[in-house]
Protein backbone atom coordinates (compact mmCIF):
# COMPACT_ATOMS: atom_id res chain seq x y z
CA UNK A 1 0.00 0.00 0.00
CA UNK A 2 1.14 3.53 -0.64
CA UNK A 3 1.72 3.81 -4.39
CA UNK A 4 1.19 7.21 -5.94
CA UNK A 5 0.48 7.91 -9.57
CA UNK A 6 0.43 11.27 -11.35
CA UNK A 7 -1.46 11.06 -14.65
CA UNK A 8 -1.18 13.96 -17.07
CA UNK A 9 -1.33 16.49 -14.25
CA UNK A 10 -1.55 20.14 -15.25
CA UNK A 11 -1.90 22.99 -12.84
CA UNK A 12 -2.75 26.58 -13.66
CA UNK A 13 -2.95 29.20 -10.93
CA UNK A 14 -5.41 32.01 -11.42
CA UNK A 15 -7.94 32.10 -14.24
CA UNK A 16 -7.84 29.00 -16.39
CA UNK A 17 -6.97 30.90 -19.54
CA UNK A 18 -4.24 33.43 -19.03
CA UNK A 19 -3.33 32.17 -15.55
CA UNK A 20 0.16 31.10 -14.62
CA UNK A 21 0.85 27.52 -15.64
CA UNK A 22 2.95 25.84 -12.96
CA UNK A 23 2.76 22.17 -13.88
CA UNK A 24 2.81 20.84 -17.40
CA UNK A 25 1.85 17.25 -18.07
CA UNK A 26 3.33 15.53 -15.03
CA UNK A 27 3.38 11.75 -15.27
CA UNK A 28 5.05 9.87 -12.47
CA UNK A 29 4.63 6.64 -10.60
CA UNK A 30 5.96 6.17 -7.12
CA UNK A 31 6.05 2.60 -5.90
CA UNK A 32 5.16 1.43 -2.43
CA UNK A 33 7.88 2.24 0.11
CA UNK A 34 9.89 4.09 -2.46
CA UNK A 35 11.67 7.32 -1.53
CA UNK A 36 11.39 9.87 -4.34
CA UNK A 37 12.94 13.32 -4.19
CA UNK A 38 11.91 16.14 -6.49
CA UNK A 39 14.50 18.80 -7.28
CA UNK A 40 14.17 21.79 -9.53
CA UNK A 41 14.70 25.53 -9.80
CA UNK A 42 12.64 27.63 -7.40
CA UNK A 43 9.13 28.24 -8.63
CA UNK A 44 9.17 25.11 -10.82
CA UNK A 45 6.11 23.66 -9.13
CA UNK A 46 7.76 20.93 -7.08
CA UNK A 47 5.94 22.02 -3.95
CA UNK A 48 2.70 22.18 -5.94
CA UNK A 49 3.20 18.51 -6.89
CA UNK A 50 3.45 17.63 -3.23
CA UNK A 51 0.48 19.79 -2.28
CA UNK A 52 -1.66 18.05 -4.88
CA UNK A 53 -0.78 14.66 -3.39
CA UNK A 54 -1.55 16.08 0.05
CA UNK A 55 -4.96 17.20 -1.21
CA UNK A 56 -4.36 20.89 -0.47
CA UNK A 57 -4.53 21.71 -4.16
CA UNK A 58 -6.52 20.19 -7.00
CA UNK A 59 -4.94 19.63 -10.40
CA UNK A 60 -6.43 21.79 -13.17
CA UNK A 61 -6.54 18.66 -15.31
CA UNK A 62 -5.29 15.12 -14.91
CA UNK A 63 -5.35 13.16 -11.69
CA UNK A 64 -3.32 11.94 -8.77
CA UNK A 65 -4.17 8.59 -7.23
CA UNK A 66 -3.10 6.79 -4.10
CA UNK A 67 -3.43 3.02 -4.43
CA UNK A 68 -5.62 3.66 -7.45
CA UNK A 69 -8.05 5.92 -5.54
CA UNK A 70 -8.22 9.49 -6.67
CA UNK A 71 -6.96 12.07 -4.16
CA UNK A 72 -9.62 14.68 -3.46
CA UNK A 73 -8.62 16.28 -0.15
CA UNK A 74 -6.26 16.08 2.78
CA UNK A 75 -6.37 12.94 4.95
CA UNK A 76 -4.12 11.26 7.50
CA UNK A 77 -3.12 8.47 5.10
CA UNK A 78 -0.84 11.13 3.55
CA UNK A 79 1.00 12.81 6.41
CA UNK A 80 2.79 16.06 5.63
CA UNK A 81 5.96 17.46 7.16
CA UNK A 82 6.06 21.18 6.42
CA UNK A 83 9.11 23.35 5.92
CA UNK A 84 8.01 25.61 8.76
CA UNK A 85 6.99 22.67 10.95
CA UNK A 86 3.41 23.96 11.47
CA UNK A 87 3.28 22.68 15.04
CA UNK A 88 0.41 23.94 17.18
CA UNK A 89 2.08 26.48 19.47
CA UNK A 90 -0.50 26.09 22.25
CA UNK A 91 -0.10 22.32 22.42
CA UNK A 92 2.75 20.44 24.04
CA UNK A 93 4.81 17.99 22.01
CA UNK A 94 2.64 15.16 23.32
CA UNK A 95 -0.59 17.01 22.51
CA UNK A 96 0.68 17.81 19.02
CA UNK A 97 1.23 14.10 18.43
CA UNK A 98 -2.04 13.18 20.09
CA UNK A 99 -4.36 15.25 17.88
CA UNK A 100 -4.13 12.96 14.86
CA UNK A 101 -4.60 9.88 17.03
CA UNK A 102 -7.63 11.35 18.77
CA UNK A 103 -9.07 12.07 15.33
CA UNK A 104 -8.75 8.34 14.68
CA UNK A 105 -10.80 7.71 17.84
CA UNK A 106 -8.16 5.47 19.41
CA UNK A 107 -8.43 4.67 23.10
CA UNK A 108 -6.17 6.56 25.48
CA UNK A 109 -3.83 3.67 26.42
CA UNK A 110 -3.28 2.84 22.75
CA UNK A 111 -2.56 6.49 21.96
CA UNK A 112 -0.09 6.78 24.81
CA UNK A 113 1.67 3.68 23.56
CA UNK A 114 1.92 5.01 20.00
CA UNK A 115 3.08 8.43 21.19
CA UNK A 116 5.75 6.84 23.38
CA UNK A 117 6.94 4.86 20.37
CA UNK A 118 7.13 7.91 18.11
CA UNK A 119 8.87 10.00 20.77
CA UNK A 120 11.40 7.22 21.24
CA UNK A 121 11.93 6.91 17.49
CA UNK A 122 12.77 10.61 17.20
CA UNK A 123 14.69 10.85 20.51
CA UNK A 124 12.16 13.24 21.96
CA UNK A 125 11.26 11.47 25.20
CA UNK A 126 12.64 14.18 27.43
CA UNK A 127 10.71 16.91 25.61
CA UNK A 128 7.26 15.33 25.65
CA UNK A 129 5.74 18.09 27.77
CA UNK A 130 7.58 21.04 26.24
CA UNK A 131 5.84 23.59 24.07
CA UNK A 132 7.18 24.05 20.52
CA UNK A 133 8.59 27.53 21.19
CA UNK A 134 10.78 26.04 23.91
CA UNK A 135 12.52 23.79 21.38
CA UNK A 136 15.21 24.47 18.79
CA UNK A 137 14.34 24.36 15.08
CA UNK A 138 15.83 20.89 14.73
CA UNK A 139 13.83 19.59 17.67
CA UNK A 140 10.66 21.17 16.32
CA UNK A 141 11.16 19.40 13.02
CA UNK A 142 11.68 16.11 14.90
CA UNK A 143 8.32 16.72 16.51
CA UNK A 144 6.74 17.40 13.12
CA UNK A 145 8.20 14.16 11.76
CA UNK A 146 7.05 12.27 14.85
CA UNK A 147 3.57 13.77 14.44
CA UNK A 148 3.49 12.45 10.88
CA UNK A 149 4.95 9.02 11.74
CA UNK A 150 2.67 8.37 14.68
CA UNK A 151 -0.32 8.29 12.31
CA UNK A 152 1.21 5.30 10.55
CA UNK A 153 0.52 6.94 7.19
CA UNK A 154 0.87 5.17 3.87
CA UNK A 155 2.71 8.13 2.44
CA UNK A 156 4.98 10.75 3.95
CA UNK A 157 5.08 14.06 2.13
CA UNK A 158 8.02 16.23 3.04
CA UNK A 159 8.16 19.77 1.73
CA UNK A 160 11.73 21.05 2.10
CA UNK A 161 11.59 19.81 5.68
CA UNK A 162 15.15 20.79 6.48
CA UNK A 163 15.14 24.02 4.49
CA UNK A 164 14.90 26.27 7.51
CA UNK A 165 17.47 24.45 9.65
CA UNK A 166 21.11 25.40 10.07
CA UNK A 167 23.73 23.35 8.24
CA UNK A 168 24.78 21.10 11.13
CA UNK A 169 21.27 20.35 12.28
CA UNK A 170 20.33 19.66 8.71
CA UNK A 171 23.00 16.98 8.37
CA UNK A 172 21.91 15.32 11.59
CA UNK A 173 18.31 15.28 10.41
CA UNK A 174 19.28 13.85 7.03
CA UNK A 175 21.12 10.98 8.71
CA UNK A 176 18.18 10.53 11.02
CA UNK A 177 15.83 10.26 8.08
CA UNK A 178 17.98 7.59 6.46
CA UNK A 179 17.92 5.66 9.72
CA UNK A 180 14.12 6.06 9.89
CA UNK A 181 13.72 4.88 6.32
CA UNK A 182 15.56 1.70 7.29
CA UNK A 183 13.66 0.92 10.50
CA UNK A 184 10.30 2.05 9.28
CA UNK A 185 10.16 2.27 5.50
CA UNK A 186 7.39 4.36 3.94
CA UNK A 187 6.51 5.77 0.59
CA UNK A 188 8.12 9.19 0.72
CA UNK A 189 7.76 12.14 -1.60
CA UNK A 190 10.44 14.63 -0.68
CA UNK A 191 10.76 18.11 -2.14
CA UNK A 192 14.09 19.88 -1.84
CA UNK A 193 16.35 22.30 -3.63
CA UNK A 194 19.45 20.65 -2.23
CA UNK A 195 21.00 18.29 -4.74
CA UNK A 196 23.14 16.54 -2.12
CA UNK A 197 20.14 15.96 0.05
CA UNK A 198 18.17 14.46 -2.81
CA UNK A 199 20.95 12.12 -3.93
CA UNK A 200 21.78 11.09 -0.37
CA UNK A 201 18.21 10.33 0.66
CA UNK A 202 16.26 9.21 -2.37
CA UNK A 203 15.82 6.00 -4.31
CA UNK A 204 15.00 8.09 -7.34
CA UNK A 205 15.50 11.78 -8.04
CA UNK A 206 13.02 13.62 -10.23
CA UNK A 207 14.53 16.66 -11.93
CA UNK A 208 12.07 19.34 -13.00
CA UNK A 209 12.39 22.14 -15.53
CA UNK A 210 11.79 25.82 -14.95
CA UNK A 211 8.18 26.98 -14.85
CA UNK A 212 5.98 25.66 -16.22
CA UNK A 213 7.40 22.60 -14.46
CA UNK A 214 7.81 19.48 -16.52
CA UNK A 215 9.63 16.34 -15.53
CA UNK A 216 12.98 16.60 -17.23
CA UNK A 217 14.62 13.47 -16.02
CA UNK A 218 14.13 10.72 -13.47
CA UNK A 219 17.41 9.46 -12.10
CA UNK A 220 17.80 6.07 -10.43
CA UNK A 221 19.94 6.32 -7.32
CA UNK A 222 19.02 3.09 -5.60
CA UNK A 223 20.88 0.80 -8.03
CA UNK A 224 24.15 2.66 -7.49
CA UNK A 225 23.56 2.93 -3.76
CA UNK A 226 23.10 -0.81 -3.45
CA UNK A 227 26.01 -1.65 -5.78
CA UNK A 228 28.33 0.66 -3.91
CA UNK A 229 26.87 -0.25 -0.52
CA UNK A 230 26.47 3.32 0.76
CA UNK A 231 24.72 1.77 3.71
CA UNK A 232 28.12 0.83 5.10
CA UNK A 233 28.55 4.42 6.13
CA UNK A 234 26.96 6.02 9.14
CA UNK A 235 27.92 9.55 8.22
CA UNK A 236 26.69 11.61 5.33
CA UNK A 237 30.16 13.01 4.57
CA UNK A 238 31.51 9.50 4.02
CA UNK A 239 28.77 8.80 1.52
CA UNK A 240 29.42 12.14 -0.13
CA UNK A 241 33.07 11.15 -0.56
CA UNK A 242 32.16 8.18 -2.71
CA UNK A 243 32.94 8.56 -6.37
CA UNK A 244 29.55 7.11 -7.25
CA UNK A 245 27.85 9.78 -5.13
CA UNK A 246 29.90 12.56 -6.67
CA UNK A 247 29.13 11.27 -10.12
CA UNK A 248 25.38 11.25 -9.53
CA UNK A 249 25.42 14.60 -7.81
CA UNK A 250 27.31 16.19 -10.69
CA UNK A 251 24.84 14.70 -13.09
CA UNK A 252 21.92 16.32 -11.27
CA UNK A 253 23.79 19.61 -10.97
CA UNK A 254 24.50 19.77 -14.67
CA UNK A 255 20.94 18.95 -15.49
CA UNK A 256 19.65 21.67 -13.15
CA UNK A 257 22.17 24.20 -14.38
CA UNK A 258 20.70 24.00 -17.85
CA UNK A 259 17.49 25.24 -16.25
CA UNK A 260 19.02 28.40 -14.87
CA UNK A 261 17.22 31.51 -16.12
CA UNK A 262 20.45 33.04 -17.49
CA UNK A 263 20.82 30.09 -19.90
CA UNK A 264 17.65 31.09 -21.62
CA UNK A 265 19.19 33.09 -24.48
Amino acid at each position, binding site marked *: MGSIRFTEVNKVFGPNSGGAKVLDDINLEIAEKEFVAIVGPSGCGKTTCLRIVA*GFEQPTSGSVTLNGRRVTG*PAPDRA*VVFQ*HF*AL*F*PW*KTVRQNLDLGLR*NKNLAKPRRDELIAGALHLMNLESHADA*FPHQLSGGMQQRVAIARAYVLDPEVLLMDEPFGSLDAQTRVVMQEELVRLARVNPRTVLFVTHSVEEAVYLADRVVIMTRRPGRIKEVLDIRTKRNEEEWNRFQKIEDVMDQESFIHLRTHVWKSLREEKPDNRS
Partner: protein
Amino acid sequence: MTDRPLSLRETMASGLAGLGCFLGIWTLLTVSGLVPRQFLPTPLDVTSRFIQLLTTPFAGATLPQHLASSFKRYIVGVCLAASVGVPLGLMMGWFRWLDDIMAPIFEGLRFIAPIAWVPFAALWFGTGIGGPVMIIFAGAFPPCLINAYRGARFVDPRLIEAAQMLGTGHLRTILEILLPASIPSIVVGLRVSAGLGWQSLVGAELIVAASGVGFMMVQAQANVSTPTVMAGMIAIGLAGMLIDVLLRQGEASIRRRRGLSA
Protein backbone atom coordinates in the same frame (compact mmCIF):
# COMPACT_ATOMS: atom_id res chain seq x y z
CA MET B 1 4.59 61.16 18.64
CA THR B 2 8.20 61.91 19.53
CA ASP B 3 10.84 59.31 18.80
CA ARG B 4 12.20 58.91 22.30
CA PRO B 5 10.15 56.58 24.49
CA LEU B 6 9.44 58.15 27.88
CA SER B 7 10.45 56.44 31.09
CA LEU B 8 7.75 55.34 33.51
CA ARG B 9 8.52 58.27 35.83
CA GLU B 10 8.34 60.77 33.01
CA THR B 11 5.07 59.27 31.82
CA MET B 12 3.59 59.47 35.29
CA ALA B 13 4.85 63.02 35.75
CA SER B 14 3.28 64.12 32.45
CA GLY B 15 0.03 62.40 33.39
CA LEU B 16 -0.12 64.13 36.75
CA ALA B 17 0.74 67.47 35.16
CA GLY B 18 -2.13 67.04 32.71
CA LEU B 19 -4.55 66.11 35.47
CA GLY B 20 -3.31 69.07 37.56
CA CYS B 21 -3.89 71.51 34.70
CA PHE B 22 -7.37 70.13 34.15
CA LEU B 23 -8.32 70.47 37.83
CA GLY B 24 -6.67 73.92 37.94
CA ILE B 25 -8.72 75.26 35.04
CA TRP B 26 -11.86 73.69 36.44
CA THR B 27 -11.26 75.30 39.87
CA LEU B 28 -10.43 78.64 38.30
CA LEU B 29 -13.58 78.66 36.18
CA THR B 30 -15.90 77.76 39.03
CA VAL B 31 -14.36 79.50 42.05
CA SER B 32 -13.89 82.77 40.15
CA GLY B 33 -17.62 82.72 39.35
CA LEU B 34 -16.94 82.76 35.60
CA VAL B 35 -19.25 79.76 35.32
CA PRO B 36 -22.19 79.76 37.75
CA ARG B 37 -22.09 76.96 40.34
CA GLN B 38 -25.45 75.55 39.28
CA PHE B 39 -23.98 74.90 35.84
CA LEU B 40 -20.65 73.51 36.90
CA PRO B 41 -19.92 72.51 40.51
CA THR B 42 -16.44 73.10 41.93
CA PRO B 43 -14.07 70.14 42.24
CA LEU B 44 -14.35 70.44 46.02
CA ASP B 45 -18.16 70.24 45.90
CA VAL B 46 -17.93 67.16 43.73
CA THR B 47 -15.33 65.48 45.92
CA SER B 48 -17.22 66.06 49.12
CA ARG B 49 -20.46 64.89 47.46
CA PHE B 50 -18.67 61.81 46.17
CA ILE B 51 -17.40 60.94 49.65
CA GLN B 52 -20.81 61.64 51.13
CA LEU B 53 -22.50 59.36 48.60
CA LEU B 54 -20.27 56.47 49.64
CA THR B 55 -22.31 56.17 52.84
CA THR B 56 -25.42 58.32 52.40
CA PRO B 57 -28.18 56.88 50.21
CA PHE B 58 -29.46 58.90 47.27
CA ALA B 59 -32.29 57.71 45.04
CA GLY B 60 -32.74 54.67 47.26
CA ALA B 61 -29.15 53.51 47.62
CA THR B 62 -25.58 54.57 48.32
CA LEU B 63 -23.14 55.02 45.46
CA PRO B 64 -21.45 51.63 46.06
CA GLN B 65 -24.89 49.98 46.04
CA HIS B 66 -25.80 51.72 42.78
CA LEU B 67 -22.47 50.62 41.35
CA ALA B 68 -23.10 47.06 42.50
CA SER B 69 -26.45 46.90 40.74
CA SER B 70 -24.88 48.42 37.61
CA PHE B 71 -22.11 45.84 37.73
CA LYS B 72 -24.56 42.99 38.05
CA ARG B 73 -26.32 43.97 34.82
CA TYR B 74 -23.01 44.73 33.20
CA ILE B 75 -21.48 41.33 33.93
CA VAL B 76 -24.60 39.52 32.74
CA GLY B 77 -24.76 41.59 29.54
CA VAL B 78 -21.09 41.33 28.63
CA CYS B 79 -20.91 37.61 29.44
CA LEU B 80 -23.97 37.01 27.30
CA ALA B 81 -22.46 39.03 24.44
CA ALA B 82 -19.16 37.13 24.67
CA SER B 83 -20.75 33.71 24.95
CA VAL B 84 -22.83 34.29 21.84
CA GLY B 85 -20.47 36.56 19.90
CA VAL B 86 -17.23 34.59 20.19
CA PRO B 87 -18.57 31.16 19.12
CA LEU B 88 -20.63 32.70 16.35
CA GLY B 89 -17.65 34.74 15.13
CA LEU B 90 -15.41 31.66 15.09
CA MET B 91 -18.02 29.66 13.25
CA MET B 92 -18.50 32.43 10.70
CA GLY B 93 -14.74 32.46 10.25
CA TRP B 94 -14.74 28.74 9.51
CA PHE B 95 -17.98 27.99 7.66
CA ARG B 96 -18.20 30.07 4.53
CA TRP B 97 -21.95 29.50 4.16
CA LEU B 98 -22.65 30.82 7.65
CA ASP B 99 -20.57 33.89 6.88
CA ASP B 100 -22.60 34.45 3.73
CA ILE B 101 -25.89 34.15 5.63
CA MET B 102 -24.92 36.25 8.64
CA ALA B 103 -22.78 38.98 7.15
CA PRO B 104 -25.54 41.14 5.58
CA ILE B 105 -27.76 41.02 8.68
CA PHE B 106 -24.87 41.80 10.94
CA GLU B 107 -23.44 44.58 8.77
CA GLY B 108 -26.80 46.37 8.99
CA LEU B 109 -27.39 45.80 12.69
CA ARG B 110 -24.01 46.95 13.88
CA PHE B 111 -24.58 50.54 12.75
CA ILE B 112 -27.57 50.88 15.06
CA ALA B 113 -26.36 52.54 18.26
CA PRO B 114 -27.11 50.46 21.38
CA ILE B 115 -29.22 53.30 22.79
CA ALA B 116 -31.51 53.03 19.77
CA TRP B 117 -32.78 49.76 21.26
CA VAL B 118 -34.05 51.55 24.37
CA PRO B 119 -37.69 51.84 23.24
CA PHE B 120 -37.87 48.11 22.59
CA ALA B 121 -35.93 47.29 25.72
CA ALA B 122 -38.44 49.31 27.73
CA LEU B 123 -41.36 47.72 25.90
CA TRP B 124 -40.13 44.15 26.30
CA PHE B 125 -38.52 44.24 29.72
CA GLY B 126 -39.75 47.34 31.57
CA THR B 127 -37.25 48.38 34.23
CA GLY B 128 -36.22 44.84 35.17
CA ILE B 129 -32.73 43.49 34.55
CA GLY B 130 -33.63 42.49 31.00
CA GLY B 131 -33.75 46.01 29.54
CA PRO B 132 -30.27 47.21 30.49
CA VAL B 133 -28.84 43.77 29.72
CA MET B 134 -30.29 43.97 26.24
CA ILE B 135 -28.75 47.40 25.67
CA ILE B 136 -25.35 46.22 26.96
CA PHE B 137 -25.61 43.19 24.74
CA ALA B 138 -26.29 45.44 21.74
CA GLY B 139 -23.15 47.42 22.55
CA ALA B 140 -20.83 44.57 23.52
CA PHE B 141 -21.83 41.92 21.00
CA PRO B 142 -20.39 43.35 17.74
CA PRO B 143 -16.75 43.67 18.87
CA CYS B 144 -16.86 40.12 20.31
CA LEU B 145 -18.14 38.74 17.06
CA ILE B 146 -15.94 40.78 14.74
CA ASN B 147 -12.73 40.03 16.58
CA ALA B 148 -13.42 36.33 16.92
CA TYR B 149 -14.27 36.27 13.21
CA ARG B 150 -11.10 38.11 12.22
CA GLY B 151 -9.03 35.91 14.50
CA ALA B 152 -10.46 32.81 12.87
CA ARG B 153 -10.00 34.16 9.35
CA PHE B 154 -6.38 35.10 9.88
CA VAL B 155 -5.16 31.87 11.47
CA ASP B 156 -1.90 30.78 9.86
CA PRO B 157 -3.16 28.69 6.90
CA ARG B 158 -0.31 26.25 7.48
CA LEU B 159 -1.78 25.34 10.87
CA ILE B 160 -5.13 24.71 9.26
CA GLU B 161 -3.48 22.52 6.64
CA ALA B 162 -1.65 20.66 9.39
CA ALA B 163 -4.96 20.08 11.18
CA GLN B 164 -6.58 18.90 7.95
CA MET B 165 -3.86 16.40 7.14
CA LEU B 166 -4.23 15.06 10.67
CA GLY B 167 -7.89 14.39 9.86
CA THR B 168 -9.31 16.97 12.28
CA GLY B 169 -13.09 17.51 12.06
CA HIS B 170 -14.94 20.82 12.05
CA LEU B 171 -15.81 21.08 15.74
CA ARG B 172 -12.34 20.07 16.86
CA THR B 173 -10.71 22.45 14.40
CA ILE B 174 -12.79 25.33 15.75
CA LEU B 175 -12.15 24.45 19.39
CA GLU B 176 -8.52 23.41 19.24
CA ILE B 177 -7.08 25.39 16.33
CA LEU B 178 -9.18 28.48 15.59
CA LEU B 179 -10.06 29.32 19.19
CA PRO B 180 -6.54 29.20 20.65
CA ALA B 181 -5.09 30.89 17.58
CA SER B 182 -7.67 33.67 17.89
CA ILE B 183 -7.25 34.29 21.62
CA PRO B 184 -5.17 37.48 21.19
CA SER B 185 -7.76 38.91 18.81
CA ILE B 186 -10.66 37.74 20.99
CA VAL B 187 -9.13 39.38 24.04
CA VAL B 188 -8.82 42.67 22.17
CA GLY B 189 -12.48 42.29 21.19
CA LEU B 190 -13.47 41.63 24.80
CA ARG B 191 -11.68 44.77 25.89
CA VAL B 192 -13.51 46.87 23.33
CA SER B 193 -16.77 45.12 24.28
CA ALA B 194 -16.18 45.81 27.93
CA GLY B 195 -15.74 49.51 27.21
CA LEU B 196 -18.71 49.81 24.89
CA GLY B 197 -20.81 47.68 27.20
CA TRP B 198 -20.08 49.94 30.14
CA GLN B 199 -20.96 53.04 28.12
CA SER B 200 -24.18 51.44 26.86
CA LEU B 201 -25.10 50.38 30.36
CA VAL B 202 -25.02 53.87 31.79
CA GLY B 203 -26.98 55.12 28.81
CA ALA B 204 -29.56 52.40 29.38
CA GLU B 205 -29.82 53.12 33.09
CA LEU B 206 -30.66 56.74 32.36
CA ILE B 207 -33.90 55.43 30.86
CA VAL B 208 -34.78 51.83 31.64
CA ALA B 209 -33.71 51.18 35.22
CA ALA B 210 -34.81 51.81 38.81
CA SER B 211 -31.31 51.55 40.29
CA GLY B 212 -27.70 51.86 39.19
CA VAL B 213 -25.32 54.76 38.65
CA GLY B 214 -27.17 56.00 35.57
CA PHE B 215 -30.47 56.01 37.46
CA MET B 216 -28.84 57.89 40.33
CA MET B 217 -27.67 60.56 37.86
CA VAL B 218 -31.13 61.00 36.34
CA GLN B 219 -32.62 61.41 39.82
CA ALA B 220 -29.91 63.94 40.64
CA GLN B 221 -30.74 65.84 37.48
CA ALA B 222 -34.38 66.00 38.58
CA ASN B 223 -33.20 67.43 41.92
CA VAL B 224 -30.81 69.84 40.18
CA SER B 225 -27.93 68.35 42.17
CA THR B 226 -25.06 68.83 39.75
CA PRO B 227 -22.40 67.61 42.20
CA THR B 228 -24.25 64.27 42.40
CA VAL B 229 -24.38 63.99 38.60
CA MET B 230 -20.69 64.75 38.43
CA ALA B 231 -19.90 62.27 41.21
CA GLY B 232 -21.78 59.65 39.20
CA MET B 233 -19.71 60.49 36.13
CA ILE B 234 -16.52 60.13 38.11
CA ALA B 235 -17.67 56.78 39.46
CA ILE B 236 -18.42 55.64 35.92
CA GLY B 237 -15.02 56.76 34.68
CA LEU B 238 -13.13 55.13 37.54
CA ALA B 239 -15.04 51.87 37.22
CA GLY B 240 -14.43 51.86 33.46
CA MET B 241 -10.71 52.39 34.00
CA LEU B 242 -10.63 49.61 36.57
CA ILE B 243 -12.33 47.21 34.15
CA ASP B 244 -9.85 48.12 31.43
CA VAL B 245 -6.83 47.70 33.69
CA LEU B 246 -8.04 44.27 34.78
CA LEU B 247 -8.61 43.18 31.19
CA ARG B 248 -5.24 44.53 30.10
CA GLN B 249 -3.59 42.48 32.81
CA GLY B 250 -5.50 39.43 31.71
CA GLU B 251 -4.35 40.06 28.15
CA ALA B 252 -0.72 40.50 29.20
CA SER B 253 -0.76 37.29 31.21
CA ILE B 254 -2.20 35.38 28.26
CA ARG B 255 0.53 36.80 26.03
CA ARG B 256 3.21 35.83 28.51
CA ARG B 257 1.88 32.31 28.81
CA ARG B 258 1.93 31.95 25.06
CA GLY B 259 5.53 33.13 24.92
CA LEU B 260 4.46 35.96 22.60
CA SER B 261 6.20 38.64 24.62
CA ALA B 262 8.90 38.55 27.25
